[in-house]
Structures are given as C-alpha cells and as structure tokens.
C-alpha cells in the first residue's frame, strides 16, 4: 500500500523521483492602482526530497510572495496573476483549484508564518488549531484521538506541559511557544514540504536559534524538504543545502550552501554577505552597506534590476537582462545572473588584508 491517496500514487517498484518540487519560469504579479507590480519574475529551481532551500533577500524582494505562490495562495487575491509552472511531486500545482488546494495544503505542503501571534486565531484554543488541521485531512479521526495526537505534536515541538498548553489561547503563550505551536500545526499531517516564511523574524535572538534548530532536527528526522525564507543570511547559513538570493523579484544567485558562503559572484549577494557582521572579523571593522534602495516595483526598466545600485554596472547591464548561468566550469551548480561577476572570496580577502595591515 502506498497510502490512501490514489491521485498520483507511484507504483511501488518505481523509485519516486528525487525531485519533490519543480518550479519553472514562475512569475507572480499584482495589478494595483499604481500599476502592475511584478513580485516574482521567471523563477526556476528544483527542490529534492529532504533538502532545504534557503531563499534570501531584503524586504520587497518577492521572497515571501514566492513562498505563498508555491503554496497556491497568491491566486486567491483577485488582483494576482500567476504564470509558469509548479510541479509538486509530479502534480501540477500552478494555480491549484479548490479541491487540489484543500487536498495538498496542510497535508503535503505546510507553511510556517512570520508572526506567530497574528497567524494564530485569537479566539481559538491552541489545541483546536492543531486538531482542526488533523481532522480536516483525516475525517475519520475522532475528537479524542485528534486531541491525543495534538498533544503529542505539541510535545514533539518541545512545548513544556503540552496538556495545559492545549487548552490555552494564543495570547497566553510567549512568542517562542507560539511559533512552536505554528510548527506543530505545520507538522500535523507530516508534510513533504514545509515553507517557512521568516519563521524566526519576530522572535528573540536566543529563541530564534532554538526554533531553527528544532526545525532542522524535525526536517532531518522526517525527511521533510523545507523552503526557508529569510532576510537574514545568518538564519539560512548552516541550515540550507542550497541558497538562492532574490532581488526585486528575480533570482540573482543560486548555489549549494557550502559554495555560496565561501564565494559569491553577484555583487548584490556579495554585498548582502559583507553587510553582515562576522564574529571572526576584526573589532570595529566597518560594515559594507549597499547604497541606494530597491527599485520601485511598478517601474519595469530594462536590464539588470540591480544595475542602478551596482558599482560595477556598465552600459549592457542597463540594456539586457543577465541570465542565471554558471559562472565557472569548476562549479556548474553555482549560478549568478550577472554580466560582470565578481569573485567574492578574492574581494573579501583583499579587504580583510588591507584592514589587518591598517594601524
């Protein structure tokens, strides 16, 4: 038996494909009074089972919209258009219909939200949030069994005294506990893919680490794939298998995490990393900051979206859009969308040396 779901059951003798999620040329745009806003533009990537993809970008880069679009939630607002293709486990999940959405969401794909307080219903018990998810996807589950499972889930996300917490309201819990509840809800039906949209942004730094470690441990234990969306490279570092840098709706750089944190090719990716304080950098070292602001999303100028802020930009950058391509033959998986890629490792070493040499 493969399971109760017959829609896309794979015969037992064929090994299921390694790729869980295949995204091709995905774009999401919104028509607003001030014009067409393209939040996600021709994004393509593959996510393998059990792997974690980190998506990094500043506010307005489209990373959250990308997460929601993968969840099939973007199309719910009447002014949104989604194009391209999302294949989840071989099933076309682009603009899913009601039936497909209610079958997949919560059970195969789950989501964790940024603000655990506002993403929990203030008038519902903590426990109800978990049991309703369980019962939604397993109609035969009795109330009592659902409660038992829910308490088990709360325990699993390391909420102390889960019995008592089950009967409390979200406002009675601390921020870290609430986000654990959010994780318990997401885990309820053992999904294959977890979309974590800034899961720790609203939390204290110490709590952040606990929550991220918990997420990582659960992903590994259950073989769950995760898309970890964050504005903070530190959150993604060490917890992703692959990293994708988004800027103004486009992927600027994409690389295996081990590669990415050593060397960045795109000036924006380099800038992001260089603007982050590092523990091993000398004290009082000046942090680099990227000058300027992200472009107006309604302004569809030609060329590279980062060109107006890029110090290396030349004429071609303002005319043609660079494609996301491998930069060096040595690392075919490490791609950047830049005509004049830099070598982040080399630049950083020079900067560090000059700083060390300074009095």
């Amino acid at each position, binding site marked *: 038996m493969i399971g109760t779901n017959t829609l896309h059951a794979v015969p037992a003798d064929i090994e299921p494909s390694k790729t869980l999620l295949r995204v091709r040329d995905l774009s999401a745009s919104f028509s607003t009074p001030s014009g067409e806003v393209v939040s996600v533009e021709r994004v393509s990537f593959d996510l393998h089972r059990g792997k974690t993809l980190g998506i990094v970008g500043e506010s307005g880069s489209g990373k959250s919209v990308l997460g929601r679009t993968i969840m099939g939630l973007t199309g719910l607002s009447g002014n949104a258009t989604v194009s391209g293709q999302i294949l989840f486990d071989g099933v076309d999940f682009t603009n899913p219909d*009601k039936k497909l*959405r209610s079958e*997949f969401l919560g059970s195969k794909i789950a989501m964790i939200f940024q603000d655990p307080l506002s993403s*929990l*219903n*203030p*008038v519902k018990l903590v426990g109800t949030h978990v049991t*309703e998810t369980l019962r*939604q996807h397993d109609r035969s589950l009795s109330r009592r069994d659902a409660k038992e499972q829910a308490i088990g889930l709360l325990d699993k996300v390391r909420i102390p005294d889960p019995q008592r917490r089950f009967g409390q309201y979200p406002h009675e819990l601390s921020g870290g506990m609430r986000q654990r509840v959010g994780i318990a*809800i997401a885990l309820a039906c053992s999904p294959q893919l977890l979309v974590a949209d800034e899961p720790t942004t609203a939390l204290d730094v110490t709590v952040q680490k606990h929550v991220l470690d918990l997420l990582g441990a659960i992903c590994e234990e259950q073989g769950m794939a995760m898309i970890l969306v964050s504005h903070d490279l530190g959150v993604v570092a060490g917890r992703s298998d692959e990293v994708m840098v988004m800027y103004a709706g486009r992927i600027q750089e994409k690389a295996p995490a081990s590669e990415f944190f050593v060397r960045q090719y795109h000036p924006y990716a380099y800038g992001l990393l260089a603007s982050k304080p590092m523990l091993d950098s000398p004290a009082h070292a000046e942090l680099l900051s990227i000058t300027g602001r992200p472009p107006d999303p309604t302004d569809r100028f030609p060329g590279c979206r980062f060109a107006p802020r890029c110090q290396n930009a030349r004429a071609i950058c303002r005319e043609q859009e660079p494609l996301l391509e491998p930069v060096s033959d040595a690392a075919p998986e490490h791609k950047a969308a830049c005509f004049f890629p830099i070598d982040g490792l080399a630049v950083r070493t020079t900067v560090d040396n000059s700083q060390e040499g300074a009095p």
Partner: protein
Amino acid sequence: MKLMINKVVQLVVVLLLVSIGTFALTSLMPGDPATAILGPDQPAEAYIELREELGLNDPVLARYFGWLGHALQGDLGNSLVTPFRSVNELVGGAFPVSFQLAAMGLIISLAISIPLAMVSARRPDGAIDRAISALTFGILAVPSFVAGLILIALVVNQLNIFPRTQWIPFTENPLDNLYHAALPAITIALAEVPTFTRVLRGDLVSTLQEDFILSARAKGMPAWRIMIFDAFRPSSYSLITVVGLALASLIGSTVIVETLFSLSGMGSLIVNASYVGNVTVVQGAVLVIAVCYVLINAVVDLLYAVIDPRIRRATT
C-alpha cells in the same frame, strides 16, 4: 467573578440614574394629571383637592422616593385614566408583545444579514457584493410603515398567507403566536437588515486580511469553513453591539408597526398615555424600557468576554 461584581455595582448606579431621569422627565411633561383625570369642566376646588390627594403638592424629592419605593417593590402605581388598571397590569400586557416582536425581528434580521454579509465579504467590491450593497441601501430607504403596508398588501390581502391582526399570547398557543407575530416581526427585521449587513461585512472584510486567515488557508481549510469558523467570531463584536442597541430600542419604538398591525405593545402604550397625560403609565413604561436597555447592554458587555478570550483575561 470580580468582573461580575463590578458590573452589578455599575448596573445599580445606572439604574438609579435612569429612575431619576424617568421621574424628572414625566414631571416636566406638559399637562396636569388632575385635569387628565377629571376632564376640563370641573370646579377649580375639585382639581386642587385631587392634586392634594394624589400627592402632587408634596416636595419633588418626597414624591420621587415615594414612587421609587413602590417601584422597587414592583408596584408602578395605577393608571390615572380609564381603564383604571394598575400600571403593572398594563405594562405586563404590552411588554411581552414588544419584546417578542423585537426579539423575533432581530433573529429574522440576523438570519438574513449574516449570510448576506458573508457572501459580500468573500469578494469585496465584486458583483455580488455590489448587488447586496445596492439591495441593503434600497431597503434602508424604505421606511418601515411603507414596508409594512407593502407586506400587508401583498402577503395578507393578495396571498392570504398570514393574518393581519390579532395577538395570541405565546403561553396560550405557541405556534399560533409565532404565526401571528411573523408579519410584524418581518417588518421590523427588514429595517435592521441593512445596518447589520453593512457592519458585519465591514468587519469580515478586515478580518479576512488577517494572517490567521491565510494560515487557515495554508492548512487546506475550505473557504466557507474559514468564513464561518475562523472569520465570523472575531468579526462579530460590532455586530453584537449594534444588535444589543437595536433590541433595546425596538422594545419601545415599534409604534408604527404596532399601529399597522393593531397590536398593543409598549410603543402604543406610551404614546396613548402621553396624549392624555397619564403620567404614571408613562413613568412605569419608560422605566421598564430603560431597565431593559441597561440590562441588555450589560449582557452585551459580558458577551464580548465570552467571544474574545483576550478580554476575559484583561478584566478578570
């Protein structure tokens, strides 16, 4: 518990103020009870004598406390004009009629408004929303006497489904009572539908923007379930306030509907008593309505706490 005690203390104070207001109001009413009783053509001594007898020459405070004392014991005095029945009896006859009409009207009205608001809020500014909005504004523009007359003309005279007049007490025959009360209740309900629909729709639309709605969607909940089980309760605070106020005000203000359907509720009791300067009846009826106002609002306050656990914790 502390919440309850606080509320009770508040209630007592408000009720005292209400009684002072009621008493003062009727003392300021033009007209002289003695004239009301005796008619205009009696010798002057007769009026003076009757005023003395009624205690109208006593100091205001003495009269107020005398009245309040009796009222607290459940005695609202006697009607000054024919039929010389006790105010208790008159109010006791009219109040159930008014209360039932108001309550039924509100229930019918909510049964119409809540689904309308939910359908509207699903796609704000969509075709359905606009149609419902136009419909509710249309109803709003029709005064209840017009709506009542149309209902009578259509339902009673043409279709002969509902009886036009007659009131059968609920205790006598519940089914017959509901049957007879239906038409006036619908007339009352129609007038409230626009407000309820608009208020709830507005709150639903803003609740549906909340993150917890998105997270419910991300759990695979169907839209109708989210609307009923996630969005409705957090959106119902304003609706409850408006419904509470409407219930309280309807008890005393359904004169037009009562007249149309020849019912004798609180509205017609007060209006008729006022015409003839029947002060004790007006006082008694207004006091009962005022007490209802206060009690209903107290219940509404408690309902907030029932609906919203955050209030519960803040006040207990």
